């Protein structure tokens, strides 16, 4: 098998044994990227940087100073600021922006010897569930329905990351997750994606969407890879005041495969009306797998689940309207051409109308409205109170002895690009129904591929963990992964 198809764990072992060089491994990914243009996953390619980093990694490997990520070729979501390399959050308003600094996450990954192949497609400012709001055009899933050549969404907002990993254009990728943007695309493309506990990974240098919800995490081909890569991304950062000053445990060592006696909660509120039978059946199979591995399965209730989506769609736009106020055409990015007599207000208004796409404009305006005088209490404060209740629901079940919660990751398999173009924006928001609760409560959540639907498309299950217990969560996910034995790959058509 060509080296670009390897997992991080396999590549790490091969690199250390000298069976392949980091340069050759990187070359195999660069070749795959060039052959994968149709997927539109990589939107800025950095082969020179990649080869320079790969040569440095080979020197470290030779010197015997090689952390696990040394020489591992990665794709980086366009939301991460990378020094000297375009970083525009898939928005025209940041066209031409080349940061003078490096995000903490990419600094840590590069410090550990990882290789950057380029920047990955995404929804504009991470606002979307299908990668269709990107200024670069749609990212395309490598998966297709049986007997069909209709192009499908890889999910969003980390759609380019999901497509690139699933199509073996890279070994793994960074993602970010504000309401499900790592877990939903991972589920749509048959890969693993973990959103860590809020505060586990530094947000410094990651373009902000909703600061109380945003969290970065790895998107990988296996749970073990997620553990290895999260290890390299996590840790306290004085530059992010919400980053937790807690030691990062050895996540890979937590993958013991032993979950005997652990208690898995099954929340009844996640059984939605109109949920496809296949999702329900997949969930039941997941329950059986964990039970078979010795876990105790218990029915639980998270009574405020129903209100998570509306609360999220108040809080996230409110924070976005504030965060995105910085795009004013003054300090970086796009500035509109002005007419004679235009003042600074016209400059702001024209710049933002030209630079932001329709979904981003809508969310900024929703956020502006819910924060405006007279509506602040009715919408924003009420949503924050409901958020407190959603968090309390989780705290209650954890206090009652639940170790982890198993739910579906998405309400359906991937849909076709353009299929949702004419629906109400709210319909698209329903994609996040199983994932937003986790962001609102600040908990870690992971999506694991478990099966295929009748069309041959991947379906995933989500495990939710206690705060700061990503190690245990990864172990439950590892058990689910081993029992599910998901090995399907997208047939190569691109």
């Amino acid at each position, binding site marked *: 098998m060509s080296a670009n198809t390897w997992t991080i764990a396999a590549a790490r072992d091969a690199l250390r044994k000298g069976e392949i060089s980091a340069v050759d491994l990187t070359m195999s990914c660069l070749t795959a990227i060039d052959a994968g243009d149709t997927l539109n996953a990589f939107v800025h390619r950095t082969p020179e940087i990649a080869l320079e980093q790969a040569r440095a990694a080979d020197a470290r490997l030779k010197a015997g100073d090689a952390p696990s990520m040394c020489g591992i070729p990665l794709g980086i979501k366009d939301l991460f600021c990378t020094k000297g390399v375009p970083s525009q959050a898939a928005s025209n308003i940041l066209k031409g922006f080349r940061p003078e600094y490096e995000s903490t996450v990419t600094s840590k990954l590069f410090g550990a010897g990882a290789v950057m192949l380029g920047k990955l497609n995404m929804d504009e400012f991470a606002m979307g569930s299908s990668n269709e709001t990107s200024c670069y055009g749609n990212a395309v899933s490598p998966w297709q329905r049986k007997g069909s050549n209709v192009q499908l969404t890889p999910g969003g907002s980390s759609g380019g990351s999901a497509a690139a990993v699933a199509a073996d254009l890279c070994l793994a990728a960074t993602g970010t997750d504000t309401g499900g943007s790592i877990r939903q695309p991972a589920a749509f493309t048959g890969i693993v994606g973990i959103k860590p506990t809020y505060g586990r990974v530094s947000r410094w240098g990651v373009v902000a969407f909703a600061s109380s919800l945003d969290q970065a995490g790895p998107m990988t081909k296996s749970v073990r890879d997620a553990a290895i890569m999260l290890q390299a991304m996590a840790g306290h950062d004085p530059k992010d005041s919400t980053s937790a000053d807690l030691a990062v445990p050895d996540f890979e060592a937590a993958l013991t495969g032993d979950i005997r006696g652990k208690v898995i909660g099954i929340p009844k509120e996640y059984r939605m009306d109109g949920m496809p039978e296949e999702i329900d059946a997949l969930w039941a199979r997941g329950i059986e797998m964990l039970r078979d591995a010795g876990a105790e399965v218990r029915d639980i209730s998270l009574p405020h689940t129903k209100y998570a989506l509306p609360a999220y769609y108040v809080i996230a736009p409110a924070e976005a309207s504030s965060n995105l106020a910085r795009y004013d055409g003054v300090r970086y990015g796009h500035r509109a051409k002005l007419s004679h007599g235009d003042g600074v207000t016209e400059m702001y208004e024209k710049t933002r109308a030209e630079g932001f796409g329709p979904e981003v404009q809508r969310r900024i305006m*929703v956020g502006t409205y819910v924060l405006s005088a007279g509506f602040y209490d009715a919408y924003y404060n009420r949503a924050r109170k409901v958020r407190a209740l959603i968090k309390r629901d989780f705290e209650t079940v954890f206090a009652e002895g639940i170790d982890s919660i198993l739910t579906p990751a998405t309400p359906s398999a991937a849909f076709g690009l353009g299929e949702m173009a004419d629906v109400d924006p709210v319909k698209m928001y329903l994609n996040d129904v199983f994932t937003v609760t986790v962001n609102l409560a600040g908990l870690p959540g992971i999506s694991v591929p478990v099966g295929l639907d009748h069309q041959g498309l991947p379906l995933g299950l989500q495990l939710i963990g206690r705060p700061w217990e990503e190690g245990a969560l990864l172990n439950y996910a590892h058990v689910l992964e081993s029992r599910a034995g998901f090995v399907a790959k997208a047939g190569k058509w691109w």
Partner: protein
Amino acid sequence: MAIDIDTARKVAKLARIRVEEADLPKLAGQLSGILGFMEQLNEVDVEGVEPMTSVTPMRLKRRVDEVTDGNIQAQVLKNAPDAREGFFAVPKVVE
């Protein structure tokens, strides 16, 4: 609550996003739909509940009050659409 065209115009103004008059009815409709979806929150009894302010119960760290960087004017201005004589340049603000 339904958003009328005047409210949509006002919100666009507050958000500093230019919206053409012809596009306001569609925008008002979409905003109404989204806000209608949020109305569900009114069903929840939030009596006595404090609004959530911090995600994890921890005290924000304070750093030592000292200068940690600076003297990077060129880097700060590097990405500006219009920078002159060491400053960001904008259209005339004061007549």
